[in-house]
């Protein structure tokens, strides 16, 4: 595979700090192996390698803040020769044969036909400024040589003070990342919403029976039934499952639900449960337990941060009855699930107390319409009312 680079772990990521190498030169690595830990605004993320090979050289040093795309290591496939020159981490200029590796010369004006051309700004910052209508002349850059980076543009928008030299707490960094993603979502995605309250007593009774004979370690939570139902429903309604990138919707061929996990002390992450339709209920529960504990410990994988195809956000077992979520771009839908409530309900002409749940689908109107959203909600209801099928 050759040069392994700093991956993008989300649309708003510009750089990451290399916190830890988990391999050394000479180590054999297989697809999916975690080889490094990178600190991002969303916490420490484990970086996986996507091909088999042997670690030839580690070119980035621990503690370095590295822009997305910076070479980190050279990993060779079987029989592959090492490249002749390996770009070091910005230490010396690369040789002429590798012009693509060259970093922009800071003092040279960036040739550009656009009006913001006179300001030093990263391409991502320019796109962002255009999207938000922010004048780059009013933005203070915090990048190398005062270059304006995307987060600087976001700061103008969110009103955050531009004090890049001051270290911020991990929670403040996470709030900044959430602010950027949610602001972008609300400014670029035409959301529409569909809510439905449904009887979940069959699911609650099913779980009570299932868990009665099980030791605590094998018990299943209602949240796992919701994830299961939402994943299966999403697999049937293609227009809520995928990514909207550069003006085009790309439906996903698997369902990787991002499960919103509230972090104690504040903050929120929504790591993806990979290929969830292929898991049965018990495996879904096991995977969720693992995902939640790793999210809390700050040990998620890069793929889990980027490969979500729809988000599921549940308020838990007590509290507010409904939630209308904001879509996490580039996804196109989020399912908000309220806490179960006991309500009078009509069954066979009789009013009886039942446990009901309100789900709200927020969907991207560029991609789907009310009809598809209604179909998702209806599929979800059918599934949750037949929990034995999950």
């Amino acid at each position, binding site marked *: 595979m050759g040069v392994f680079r700093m991956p993008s772990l989300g649309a708003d990521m510009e750089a990451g700090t290399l916190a830890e190498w988990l391999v050394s030169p000479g180590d054999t690595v297989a697809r999916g192996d975690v080889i490094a830990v990178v600190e991002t605004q969303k916490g420490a993320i484990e970086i996986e390698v996507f091909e088999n090979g042997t670690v030839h050289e580690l070119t980035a040093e621990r503690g370095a803040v590295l822009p997305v795309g910076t070479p980190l290591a050279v990993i060779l496939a079987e029989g592959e020769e090492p490249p002749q020159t390996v770009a070091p981490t910005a230490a010396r200029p690369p040789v002429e044969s590798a012009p693509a590796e060259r970093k922009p010369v800071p003092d040279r004006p960036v040739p550009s036909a656009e009006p913001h051309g006179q300001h030093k700004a990263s391409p991502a910052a320019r796109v962002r400024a255009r999207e938000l209508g922010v004048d780059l002349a009013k933005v203070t850059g915090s990048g190398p040589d005062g270059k304006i980076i995307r987060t600087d543009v976001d700061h103008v928008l969110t009103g955050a003070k531009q004090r890049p030299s001051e270290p911020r707490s991990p929670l403040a960094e996470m709030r900044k990342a959430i602010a950027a993603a949610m602001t972008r979502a609300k400014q670029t995605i035409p959301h529409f919403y569909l809510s439905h309250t449904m009887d979940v007593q069959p699911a609650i009774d099913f779980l009570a029976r299932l868990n*009665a004979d099980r*030791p*605590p*370690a094998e018990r299943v*939570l209602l*949240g796992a039934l919701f994830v299961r139902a939402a994943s299966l429903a999403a697999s049937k309604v293609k227009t809520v499952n995928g990514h909207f990138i550069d003006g085009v919707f790309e439906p996903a061929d698997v369902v990787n639900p991002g499960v919103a996990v509230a972090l*104690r002390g504040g903050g929120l992450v929504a790591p993806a449960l990979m290929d969830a339709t292929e898991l049965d209920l018990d495996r879904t529960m096991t995977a969720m*337990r693992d995902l*939640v504990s790793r999210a809390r410990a700050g040990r998620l994988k890069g793929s889990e941060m980027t490969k979500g195809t729809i988000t599921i956000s549940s308020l838990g*077992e007590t509290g507010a009855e409904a939630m209308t979520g904001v879509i996490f771009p580039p996804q196109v839908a989020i399912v908000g699930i309220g806490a179960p409530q006991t309500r009078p309900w009509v069954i066979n002409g009789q009013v009886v107390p039942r446990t009901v749940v309100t789900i709200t689908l927020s969907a991207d109107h560029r991609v789907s319409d009310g009809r598809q959203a209604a179909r998702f909600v209806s599929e979800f209801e059918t599934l949750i009312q037949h929990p034995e099928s999950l």
Partner: protein
Amino acid sequence: MNTTDIRAVYLQELCRIAPDIDPETVGDNDHIQEDLELDSMDVLNLVTALHDRTGVDIPETDYPRIATISLAVEYLKGAAQKT
């Protein structure tokens, strides 16, 4: 297990699940969900840990009986005597 042991085990497991909680500040009648903000996954993890440490199974219907330290001490002491 006596009251002191159960109390210690409970606090230890609670703070392992929620490392931001200072054991010194947890009151005997603090509710794990309403006061200490554990969610359903945390509660299940606490029940699992208490089961491992004390041998008491704690069925779902009894979760309210371990919701505070003082409730849990009474419940686990009683349940352990029965087994």
